[in-house]
């Protein structure tokens, strides 16, 4: 077993932001690891497995640090119900994307990835410039709509699930700290299904390389414990600005990557 310091630091930074702002672990870390010379089968399933463990850890500590109240017994709290809705839509999206890959349906990758990058950028800009005017009433229909949209994007392989879900929750009137906690736990569940689908594919002869797992897990796990504490101590007014700004950053990062400047 080998530990890579650079990978531990990168995983720690991206998981900290993911557990604080609800987005960026997959979208940010995957292309960086490709640039560092790692292959998709060394990166994607390992990120999913790591995110599965860290998602549950972050969700647990978000609950512990009172950023959210989850329940595992009936009656379920609203936060738990929302988390389950988001997770189920995400799981269906993963299964759909595996089916698409299985039937090798070719979609115009650049076009759909540009669409998601622009969508994330626009949501970030709207979130940033309208956070003062935004009415903080809970809108469940909008929440389900944004979960469906994020699931559709993930299903067609365009990514950006975290940013769309996160901004969708904020637009639906959910308190930022709680929205982050909900995304963390639901991403944990979605990642289990994602990793299981990779195991399914590996039974058909695709070999998963686990060399990065200890490093990504180490950085991710430390962040999953620390981030909920940061979310608790930093005031929500700050997260209200940081989250859309980070979404804008991710949208721009995706666009730059698509233009080929990073490769």
């Amino acid at each position, binding site marked *: *077993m080998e530990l890579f310091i650079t990978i531990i630091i990168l995983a720690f930074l991206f998981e900290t932001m993911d557990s604080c702002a609800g987005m960026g672990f997959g979208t940010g870390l995957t292309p960086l690891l490709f640039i560092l010379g790692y292959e998709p089968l060394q990166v994607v399933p390992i990120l999913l497995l790591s995110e599965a*463990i860290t998602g549950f*850890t972050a969700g*647990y*500590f978000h609950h*512990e*640090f*009172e*950023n*959210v*109240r989850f329940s595992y017994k009936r*009656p379920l*709290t*609203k*936060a738990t119900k*929302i988390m389950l809705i988001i997770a189920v839509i995400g799981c269906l999206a993963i299964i759909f994307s595996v089916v698409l890959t299985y039937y090798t349906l070719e979609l115009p990758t650049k076009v759909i990835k540009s669409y998601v990058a622009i969508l994330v950028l626009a949501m970030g800009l709207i979130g940033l410039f309208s956070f003062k005017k935004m009415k903080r009433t*809970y809108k469940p229909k909008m929440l389900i709509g944004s979960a469906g949209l994020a699931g559709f994007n993930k299903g067609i392989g365009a990514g950006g699930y975290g940013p769309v879900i996160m901004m969708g929750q904020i637009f639906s009137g*959910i*308190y930022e*700290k*709680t*929205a982050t*906690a909900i995304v963390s736990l639901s991403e944990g569940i979605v990642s289990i299904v994602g990793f299981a689908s990779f195991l399914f594919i590996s039974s058909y002869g695709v070999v998963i390389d*686990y*060399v990065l*797992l*200890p490093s990504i*897990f*180490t950085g991710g*796990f430390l962040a999953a*414990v620390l981030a909920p*504490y940061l979310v*608790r*101590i930093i*005031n*929500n007014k700050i997260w209200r600005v940081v989250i859309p700004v980070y979404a804008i950053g991710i949208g721009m990062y995706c666009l730059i990557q698509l233009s080929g400047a990073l490769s």
Partner: protein
Amino acid sequence: MEEIKKDVAHINEVGYVARMVDTTMSTKDRMKIKKNTILRLSGAILLYTLIMIFFSFIL
């Protein structure tokens, strides 16, 4: 009884707990960690160690 039900419903609202922590506690108070939380953090460190030992065996 009705009042208790209303209270519980309110607590179950999304974001209620986080909002209460933000409005009723100062940053300094929010930084304090409860004894139970320290125990759970120790549990997390133990879990991390066990998982890493598991990885060192299988990888």
